[in-house]
């Protein structure tokens, strides 16, 4: 089992969700987040005062999948979230020790 964390551009969320449904992903958690990577922030001017925008709005997806689906899932996210411009985001894959479905007490991949 792996946890896939993807940080993407907010307007790409629908496309990514659809791409994931197509490969059979049945659940995900989505959070609105702010941050920056190599894209960094930029400066803006409002009413004459200049300020730096350090943190840009992004969407974070968290999906737990069985090992054999990891490559396929990551590929689907990368493909559907790509614009080719800076700021497209990142995908991280981390191991998951255990999963429990609260309602039924199921454990492991059965709970995902």
């Amino acid at each position: 089992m792996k946890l896939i964390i993807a940080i993407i551009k907010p307007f790409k969320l629908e496309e990514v969700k659809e791409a994931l449904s197509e490969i059979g992903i049945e659940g995900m958690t989505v959070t609105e987040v702010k941050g920056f990577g190599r894209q960094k922030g930029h400066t803006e001017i409002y009413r004459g005062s200049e300020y730096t925008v350090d943190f840009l709005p992004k969407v974070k997806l968290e999906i737990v999948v069985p090992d054999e689906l990891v490559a396929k899932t990551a590929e689907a996210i990368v493909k559907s979230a790509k614009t080719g411009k800076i700021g497209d985001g990142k995908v991280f894959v981390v191991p998951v020790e255990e999963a429990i479905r609260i309602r039924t007490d199921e454990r492991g991949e059965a709970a995902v």
Partner: protein
Amino acid sequence: MKSRSAKTLRTILAAAAGVSLFSLPAWAEEAAPLTVDSGNNAWLMTSTALVLFMTLPGLALFYGGLVRSKNVLSVLAQCLGIAGLVTLLWWGVGYSLAFGSSFGSGLVGGTEFMTLKGVAGVPNPTYSATIPHATFSMFQLMFAIITPALIVGAVAERMKFSAVMLFVGLWMLIVYFPMAHMVWGSNGFMNGWSADSTIKAIDFAGGTVVHMASGWSALVLCLMIGPRVGFGKEKLAPHSMVLCMVGTGMLWVGWYGFNAGSALAADGLASLAFMNTTLAAATAAFVWGMLEKMLRGHASILGFCSGVVGGLVVITPAAAFVSTSGAVIIGVFAAVVPYFAVTWLKAKLKYDDALDAFGVHGVGGTLGALLTGILASKEANPALTDMVDRGGLWLEQVKAMGVTIVVAVVGTLLIGLLVKAIVGLRPTSEVERQGLDISEHGEEGYML
């Protein structure tokens, strides 16, 4: 405009004829004493402010509450931009094209009042012998501001600001000013009060010019621009029914200026319009809410608000022409017909009229124009005696409706294509997803 203008016109002409017996010069008409009635002027200035209040912030909040939070400012900006742009156009050419007469045409006015030249404290007897010309012109300006702002509802959340401004500017010149002249101009060809008009239709406060013209244009524009990203797949629900309700209340209050002010005097006609406006709005709000409760299980705030606006729209052309029972009947129709337009017709035809500008204003305005022809009562308003006795008023109304629809649809189609070619109608889908507030206006509605 309205019954009053014809009456005052007759009075002035009669007075002029009387004076000329004493062999005064031929322009004795101008010498007829025109005194400002302070009561009338006070009410009309109040009404003028009330009608502006309908747009800023009434309609802006009504629409603003109905969009998603990322687009709330775009609606406010569009309403503010329209208020500025239309006022400048009105000053330059608009008032003259609508209420001038130097072209001698029933379709469009003239050049004599351009830059509001000579429009000041002295009344213009053609339209209002007892209130200053300046008050009359400003009162009419507020109608010109709210009309294009109504269209914004159909294309909300997905039209570029530059496209909205360009569209509205051209739409005023090609659709609104001519329409206002046709229906309200002293020699307008659809002004039933003018002896030489072709179509003897009546419109008390703007059912055709304001609501039909904006509503049908809204339908055409929303078909041209296409549905919002995510339409039919995602929930595009309103972000604040509280703002929407606040805006609705302001619209209702402001509408007293719109309807009762259209009597152009603080007289009995104004009171009749005031009463009928109340009856229709309250009836429609109640009926819409109950319909929802019976058919869907919930009487929603959006339902009540839509009922209020529907009732106000449909009573507008009939406000001082029908009896109180007529107003209640109008209120019932004003809920039932638009209710099915926005729940059934819109779903059936699958167009994305985001905030129901067509469903409420287009359908309601058309319904109002027709019901005015059927329910107009000489007992309620004796000035209607000739028209009602002549019969066939509803047929004249249908003709006026036909002309209005053609002008609005063809005008909007041409302007829409032009705007699309010059600046494009829509932002990129990235911008649309992000919301128009940040990208088009550089601000956010809510900082939490």
